[in-house]
């Protein structure tokens, strides 16, 4: 049947592409699993080229009409922030009483203006137009193109941010980012940082993806582009224009998603991505990754960008190994490659050579590295290699246990959750990354967990990106005493009557979520929506119930799309 069969089934192939520090991994996945894999060297100065080369190579001789989508995970925005290669942006902040908003200053062009909203969304102090105009003029002089506008409690009442956006209209800024559209969660400093990051990476992001799209078109490759987010979900290109910050730190997410196929449908699993410099650790519960409660942290920025909960330690195949006070110390720094691959200092990888687990390098050099440690400790070279290897494994395991502990000690706010809440009890390790195979057995032994390496561990990250589901979340807030229902991220607000019920709120939130997911590129038939938080409070004033205060959080949870096998 071949081609005709495939055409009848619709566009059925998927490309997953993950740009890593050294390699860019690309896979082509069909209904029966990966069909082709390609590795190209990453050109960090010209990421664009790596992506394009990767896409060209993987589609060689393939009818691209059959490709349903290509999901890209890049380090573009992360690198731009870390290396400070971002555009200068302006911020207008409306704080009102509370902690001095200058404590959250993100940039030079940062203006605090009047305007205050309280926790129920009531206006305490209005916006002063002149102050905004003054700030706008100064930002124009400074050559600012993109602006972020953030108000305290704007998720409870976005009118001030919207008003400021209107006032700025005449100044023709390129793009204005409003805080309430970025997340429904409460956290003013994080809202400031997140809005700032979105505005900052906006141009870099748009330039890059427009260039990718244009080049693909020129080459006749008409593939819908999706982008991996930090939460292990995807969004389509057009959605990413408004929320480019969501792509920050999607790298670890790709690997974790790539491990899902190796995890059982039920049970708690620790994912270990053992790299050269670090090991990234995550947890899956019933094949769903555990998420950060609020959002990702990147350098000094704490954000509301939804992300997987991951923990990294500076222990990997290339970690610097030495003896300090008679003890073997591994990491956290990397001082070049393993001696077996031309490095100058011993590493856990060199230990693997001595233990005859690897042989595709300079075993003699590796031996020399271990020898220097052995001399220091007065034991044999083999013994020292064993110690280095065991130490590396036990550091990784201890870090994994720390992460589990951290997840389990997350505060909860109801009696029910405290007594009956879910406790993560891992029984299994899923391991990927370069040295994965060699670590599996020993990690199994010292942990007592079942442990296995992910098949195709070398490109599991690209597979993970390719198969990731489109995700999003919607927060709904109802105050029947005030008579409002509000989903700030969706730009949704309505006046309601007091009869508005809890189930009305849940229905509305789920409906908004479905719309958003489809807009973001999800398959409308295969949505896995869920309510993650659902609280209703009777509001009592003077011993009389005067209304209801309802908070609903819904999400499409991260996971893999259906219809593809690993």
């Amino acid at each position: 049947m071949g081609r005709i069969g495939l055409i009848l089934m619709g566009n059925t192939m998927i490309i997953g592409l993950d740009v890593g520090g050294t390699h860019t991994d690309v896979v082509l996945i069909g209904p029966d699993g990966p069909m082709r894999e390609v590795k190209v060297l990453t050109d960090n100065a010209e990421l664009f080229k790596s992506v394009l080369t990767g896409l060209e190579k993987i589609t060689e001789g393939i009818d691209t009409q059959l490709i349903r989508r290509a999901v890209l995970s890049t380090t573009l925005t992360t690198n731009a922030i870390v290396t400070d290669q971002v555009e200068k942006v302006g911020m207008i902040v409306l704080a009102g009483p509370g902690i001095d908003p200058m404590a959250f200053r993100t940039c030079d062009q940062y203006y605090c203006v009047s305007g205050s909203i309280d926790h129920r969304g009531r206006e305490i102090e209005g916006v002063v137009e002149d102050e905004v105009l003054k700030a706008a003029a100064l930002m124009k002089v400074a050559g600012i193109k993109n602006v972020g506008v953030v108000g305290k409690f704007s998720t409870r009442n976005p009118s001030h941010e919207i008003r400021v956006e209107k006032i700025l209209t005449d100044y023709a800024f390129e793009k204005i980012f409003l805080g309430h559209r970025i997340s429904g969660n409460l956290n003013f400093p994080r809202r400031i940082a997140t809005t700032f990051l979105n505005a900052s990476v906006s141009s870099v992001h748009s330039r890059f993806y427009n260039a990718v799209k244009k080049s693909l078109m020129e080459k006749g490759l008409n593939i819908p582009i999706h982008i991996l987010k930090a939460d292990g979900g995807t969004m389509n290109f057009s959605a990413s224009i408004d929320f480019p910050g969501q792509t920050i730190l999607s790298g670890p997410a790709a690997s974790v998603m790539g491990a899902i196929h190796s995890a059982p449908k039920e049970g708690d699993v620790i994912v270990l991505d053992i790299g050269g410099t670090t090991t990234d650790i995550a947890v899956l519960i019933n094949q769903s990754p555990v998420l950060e409660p609020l959002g990702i942290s990147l350098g000094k920025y704490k954000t509301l960008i939804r992300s997987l909960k991951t923990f990294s330690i500076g222990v990997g195949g290339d970690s610097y190994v030495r003896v300090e006070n008679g003890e073997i110390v591994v990491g956290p720094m990397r001082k070049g490659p393993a001696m077996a691959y031309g490095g100058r200092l011993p590493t856990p990888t060199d230990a693997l050579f001595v233990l005859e687990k690897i042989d595709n390098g300079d075993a003699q050099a590796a031996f020399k590295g271990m020898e220097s440690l052995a001399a220091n400790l007065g034991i044999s070279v083999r013994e020292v290699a064993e110690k280095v290897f065991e130490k590396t494994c036990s550091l990784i395991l201890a870090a994994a246990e720390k992460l589990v502990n951290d997840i389990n000690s997350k505060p909860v706010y109801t009696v029910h959750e405290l007594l009956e809440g879910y406790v993560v009890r891992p029984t299994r390790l899923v391991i990927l990354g370069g040295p994965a195979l060699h670590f599996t057995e020993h990690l199994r032994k010292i942990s007592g967990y079942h442990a296995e390496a992910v098949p195709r561990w070398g490109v599991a990250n690209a597979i993970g990106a390719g198969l990731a589901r489109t995700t999003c979340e919607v927060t709904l807030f109802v105050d029947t005493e005030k008579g409002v229902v509000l989903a700030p991220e969706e730009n949704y607000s309505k006046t309601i009557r007091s009869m508005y019920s809890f189930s009305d709120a849940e229905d509305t939130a789920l409906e908004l979520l479905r719309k958003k997911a489809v807009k973001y590129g999800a398959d409308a038939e295969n949505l896995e929506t869920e309510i993650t938080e659902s609280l209703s409070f009777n509001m009592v004033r003077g011993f009389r119930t005067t209304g209801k205060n309802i908070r609903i959080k819904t999400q499409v949870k991260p996971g893999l799309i259906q219809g593809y096998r690993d």
Partner: protein
Amino acid sequence: MLKALNKTGLVFFPAFDWAIDPTHPEREERLLYTQDQVFEEGILDIEGIVEYKPSLVSDMDIKRVHFCVPDVFSVTTKSHFISAGGAITMGRALMEKEIERGFALVRPPGHHSMRVVHGNRGFCNINNEAILVEYLRRHYGVKRVAIVDTDCHHGDGTQDIYWHDPDTLFISIHQDGRTLYPGSGFMEELGGPNAFGTTVNIPLPPSTSDEGYLYTIEHVVLPILSEFKPEIIINSAGQDNHFSDPLTNMNFSAQGYANLTRMLKPDIAVLEGGYSIEGALPYVNTGLILALAGLDYSGIVEPGFDAARISQSGEVTRAIKRIGETVLSHWKTRKDMQEKIRRGRDFIERRRTIMYDTDMIYEMQKDEIRICDECAGALKIDSSADTGQHILGVTIPTGACRVCRQTALDWYDQAGKGPYDRAFLQDRPNDEYKENILKRR
């Protein structure tokens, strides 16, 4: 970037699924807006402020403090175990030097709970602060403790528990008991014969504002504290002195509370009352956390704050000064007064009636303490309530002398001869808590 000067621990447990009843002030909604404010201000992201998950107290932690009638489970809910557990979580983190200050922002409250518990009084079932203090004494060998109760209502439960304990300084600052529940806490209430003077009551007139309250802290509370030299200061941090509180008549502000906290420097604060859930609590709690952490709180202003409108009259100012002078003169002469009370007596008895307003229970109590110079004294309590329960409670205090220990054991052993349904024994030196069911009902 904000960084706390004092590493500050926070247990936030709003018990969003627990209420005394649906429209009661102590209901699910109480800390909802506080949570919103604390989250929105990003307090939990500040370096040096760490949120802890509360642990649960054990049955034994409660029995170390209370005689629960008929038993612990009949007078508590799970939420009480968590709330007291929150206080202990902060205490443990403090003693383990993980934090320098701690705040248990928990509900339900506890400061109206006395040593004997027949039910709920003043929204309280078990005393979170006392459970914390006895836990710290048991597990960390802490001896001298000060509890400063800044709830607007007299902390009559805590006062009752420490009435006979010379190692615990209890100071309650509250709206005058002639004008507010529970109607006690007068300056003449100074403690039992073995602990005379270590109970300090400062009843303030209605309409006291920041000025009068902070004057009292500076000129009365701080001098007494510095003379007592506690190892640990615990603040029963009620927030109902606020001008917007619906149940009280004081004129304190969010700034006032933050200043109070800065001056008092409590090692651990435990939330008590405060029922202005929208207008006060979000701002008072934010200010309190910042003050504990040693951060700038000058920007915290609650809506509707008007310094002129809530300033106190000259008459109130003069009254507060007089009260302060009286309290200090009692403090200075406490040893002489104690001598007078004890002269020529071996045991001293006290009788009183206790009202449980929430559960509508009426209790009659008679307690007897052995006059002792070596320890806090053997204590026995005869308590009967209109629920039909009649119990005997006996306490051997921490550090008990041989005679007091024997006296207490004799009381407990002879309980069967009395009219009691149950007898309880708190053997604190051995950390053993016994009970004897004398009549089956």
